């Protein structure tokens, strides 16, 4: 009986160390100009998402090419099977874990931003950040 291995990558957000007073002052000045400035560093596209992206491109291109010449539909078919397989073999769960990680990260940096805006001094910021 064939066996298959499900590989799930778990992502967890770890809070960064406390920012320095210089960073705090600089961000404070930046946020006074644009209070919506996003402190959250951009996340890299994870491998599972890259696979899905390429599979979707394959399905789209294969679909278009199959209109020109039927046998080329195999490209779309192959891409579709790869997509389904990668989702079943842990891709879906990894993506879901990464989405949770991104959401936690976004929430944390939003709170840091609010703490910077609300704090009048670095000491006040430190006392606020401990509670996040």
């Amino acid at each position, binding site marked *: 009986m064939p066996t298959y291995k499900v590989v799930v990558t778990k992502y967890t957000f770890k809070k960064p160390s406390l*920012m320095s007073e*210089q*960073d705090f002052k*600089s*961000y404070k000045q*930046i946020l*006074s*100009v644009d209070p919506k*400035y996003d402190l959250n560093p951009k996340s890299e596209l994870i491998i599972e998402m890259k696979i899905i992206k390429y599979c979707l491109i394959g399905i789209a291109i294969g679909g278009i090419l199959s209109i020109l010449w039927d046998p080329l539909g195999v490209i779309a078919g192959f891409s579709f099977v790869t997509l389904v397989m990668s989702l079943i073999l842990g891709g879906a769960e990894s993506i879901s874990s990464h989405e949770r990680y991104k959401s936690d990260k976004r929430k944390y940096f939003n709170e840091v931003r609010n703490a910077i805006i609300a704090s009048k001094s670095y000491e006040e910021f430190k006392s606020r950040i401990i509670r996040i």
Partner: protein
Amino acid sequence: MGLLEKLKNTVESNEIKRKKSHLKNLFSIAMADGKLTNEEYDFLLLVAQRMYLDKSIIQNVINFTDDISFYVPSHDKEKLDQIYDCVCMALIDGDLNEREIGTCKLISAKMGFRPAIIDQIVEHILNSILKGIASEIALNNLFNEI
């Protein structure tokens, strides 16, 4: 009109997008204190001329600021060149206010520099301008420092 401008901006070459984004940044610094002085407008003209852009582009940037996307230069040298112009714009009317410098720092942050580096960059450029050091020398020194 906004949609049409957005569409026009989308189909423009990356080169034009990059230049317009820089002019938009300069304009937002000029407007940080709520008014565009003659000196600030002249500086916008100077930068546009230096980038081989027509005067009409400036009008387009002023009228449709929100339709121009922020463009992050791909090289640090170009980023520093743009920040240099931003600091010049903040200083051009002889009245350096917190908001103008804050806008320069915001633009630098959007370009991907970390706050500690941003302070260093802005301070370095400010000092070089005030000491009358040529921009090329100031930027070369800065580029080697960071």
